[in-house]
């Protein structure tokens, strides 16, 4: 109940059907990964979205029309991703829902754009989901994830607020997201008066993470900023860093969220920080978020990372666009409305888009700190307004 009330009060009104006639459902065709490396990101977002949709449908849906998710597991295979998206469109999808990495999702995104269907990713973390990568066709593409400029800016602010004035930056070159986020951190940090004392990189799976940590350990920086994912190299990197005597803060992106990857040594898993969408450690400051987590846990779908809130957030955005379009599902019109979102309140926080920026910028983050092996919520932190 708390979640339902919060979602309604967040600005997304739920229209209740007064008629008894069954109206045609709104079909969201989800082409996501349920078996491969994107599963930890795609699946919790979808599961949380379904919980929200169930509540929405129970109160009448959108203008009397229920939302129905039809899901295809693309297994991150490019051809299957494309054919699944074609199958989703053939099945009458009014909205296409895609995986949380733009490289993997592109074959599906292009099918959605060609079919002139609103194409939404819950948590793509680059700013490529939109016109910046797909040109004018990309006007129909949106992500409810945070843009890397935001990620970089919030990390810079975190360091400056704590008086950590020098940083060693380490980038995992596996994904464009990591590269861009670290670049954006560096420019924001320098702009805020910080100093980058070293820049280094590895690529996940290349076996060099420990060697890079060895170089960083003696850099003398106040903090190490790491743009990388959790497995396979993060535990190795952290262990090497701490073993070599560097106990200074290690700060990272949402991709470090979850805590499941932490080494068991309490001296190693200490003084580690990251910025994320929600705390999955039972202490999120938002009542609706905690209620949603509880519902997911009750269904045996306990989320590992805070990205799950982007799922219901994306549904809220889709619903609002449909309502503002008076129930019309024309993809081009829905996209034009969505591009005008300004501080739309969702369960994941405030969502804004512009005609050229179709990934969320400026939303507040939860800062998580690991102390003696225990992750916990520390504070809300905003990256500041666009372009700051």
């Amino acid at each position, binding site marked *: 109940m708390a979640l339902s009330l919060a979602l309604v009060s967040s600005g997304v009104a739920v229209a209740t059907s007064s008629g008894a006639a069954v109206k045609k459902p709104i079909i969201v065709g989800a082409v996501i990964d349920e078996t491969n490396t994107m599963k930890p990101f795609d699946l919790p977002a979808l599961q949380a979205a379904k919980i929200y949709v169930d509540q929405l449908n129970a109160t009448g849906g959108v203008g009397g029309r229920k939302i129905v998710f039809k899901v295809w597991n693309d297994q991150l295979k490019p*051809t299957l991703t*494309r054919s699944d998206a074609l199958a989703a469109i053939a099945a009458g999808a009014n909205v296409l829902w895609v995986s949380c990495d733009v*490289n993997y999702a592109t074959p599906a995104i292009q099918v959605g754009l060609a079919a002139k269907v609103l194409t939404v990713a819950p948590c793509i973390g680059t700013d490529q989901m939109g016109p910046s990568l797909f040109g004018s066709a990309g006007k129909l593409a949106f992500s409810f994830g945070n843009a890397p400029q935001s990620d970089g800016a919030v990390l810079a602010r975190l360091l400056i607020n704590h008086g950590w004035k020098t940083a060693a930056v380490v980038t995992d070159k596996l994904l464009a997201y990591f590269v861009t986020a670290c670049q954006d951190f560096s420019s924001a940090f320098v702009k805020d008066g910080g100093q980058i004392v070293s820049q280094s990189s590895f690529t996940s799976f290349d076996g060099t993470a420990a060697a890079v940590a060895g170089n960083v350990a003696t850099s003398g920086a106040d903090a190490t900023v790491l743009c990388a994912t959790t497995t396979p190299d993060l535990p190795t990197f952290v262990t090497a860093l701490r073993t070599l005597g560097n106990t200074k803060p290690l700060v990272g992106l949402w991709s470090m969220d979850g805590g499941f990857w932490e080494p068991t040594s309490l001296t190693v898993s200490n003084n580690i920080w990251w910025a994320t969408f929600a705390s999955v450690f039972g202490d999120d400051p938002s009542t609706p978020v905690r209620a949603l987590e509880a519902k997911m846990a009750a269904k045996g779908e306990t989320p590992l990372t805070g990205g799950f809130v982007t799922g219901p957030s994306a549904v809220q955005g889709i619903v609002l666009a449909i309502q503002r379009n008076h129930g019309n599902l024309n993809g081009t019109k829905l996209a034009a409305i969505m591009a005008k979102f300004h501080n739309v309140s969702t369960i994941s926080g405030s969502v804004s888009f512009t005609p050229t920026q179709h990934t969320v910028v400026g939303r507040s983050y939860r800062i998580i700190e690991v102390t003696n092996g225990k992750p916990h919520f520390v504070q809300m932190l905003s990256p500041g307004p666009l372009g700051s």
Partner: protein
Amino acid sequence: MRSKFRLVAELVGPLAAVAIVTVFGSTMSIAQQGNVTNILVTTTIVVALYVFTGNSGVMSFGQISFVAVGAFAAGILTAPTLTRQANMPSLFKFLSTTQISNFDSLLLGAGLGALFAFLVGVVLLRLSGLSAGIATFAVLEITYDVLSYWDKIGPGVMPVVLVPVTTTLVMGALGLGVAIVVAFAYQRTRSCRLLRATREDAVAAQGIGISIFQHRLIAFTISGAIAGFAGALFVHELGSISTGQVYIDLTFATLAMLVVGGTGSLWGAVLGGIALGVLESFLSNAENGVAIGSWHVTLPNGLSVVIVGVIMVVVLIFAPKGISGSHEFLERFFSHRPAKAGTGTEPESTAKMTDEESSEVPLSPRPTS
């Protein structure tokens, strides 16, 4: 006469298999046609692998490099120039402004694949055995890194997008047909027969003056051309390309197809590509639910990979030379028919041959059982 029938069968068999798959695929939904098209394109890559690995006996993990080069070249030069200039601002100017047709991009893919393979081959093909295999794997790694990070020739870690989708089911079939004809024509050449001799006994072959390096280089270059051509087909099938799509997964998938089909024959390459492709595609789709008559089958997520793995192991245990036995289509039929007494149509193995006929017989012994 029988030799000519056998020759015709060697070519017609694989082409007929492609035609059957294409006709069957044309009855399916648009979405499923995409999967069938992918099977044809992937089989084209397997044929490219066969041309080198099958004929030389040297396992190559690097042929996907040539697929990648073909795919990226074709993708970049056919994507809208405005998209390129926006997404890839650091491109060399000629890459940023040159626009070619989709057909030309297929030829370009083949040409670049051949050129790249030739250059790599000049350096690597003096190696043998495991060293050669690891060296080709290193080429794959280098290609992946260069394409991922050198933003003057590509989009770096981002995908190439908005590439025209022109590899339809029919185009995929035509592309594979061309690859089969080229592979067939090559394996009829003297150079290929000499290469096969080096595969069977390198020391003896060298002893009679055969240059292993020269004939491997020819096969490697032709293989690179077919691989680059397949890469161009691939990018026009997907409408986009990123480096991860032409890397280790595709390398091992296509090698598995070749090994399961039978490394020693063109028919094995085609059969392996189609058989494993169909199986893998069916099982992947079954994870989303498929109807078989009145039955609706839904496999648990992830099970398709396990089943494909188990089937591969079973096939390799019971048919170590692959499901084709490394024979060409109907080869055993023609090889085993006894001659009628007094007709002059003796079995090939014992018949006297004219000079012209003898030049058509492989130097290396073919498996006959």
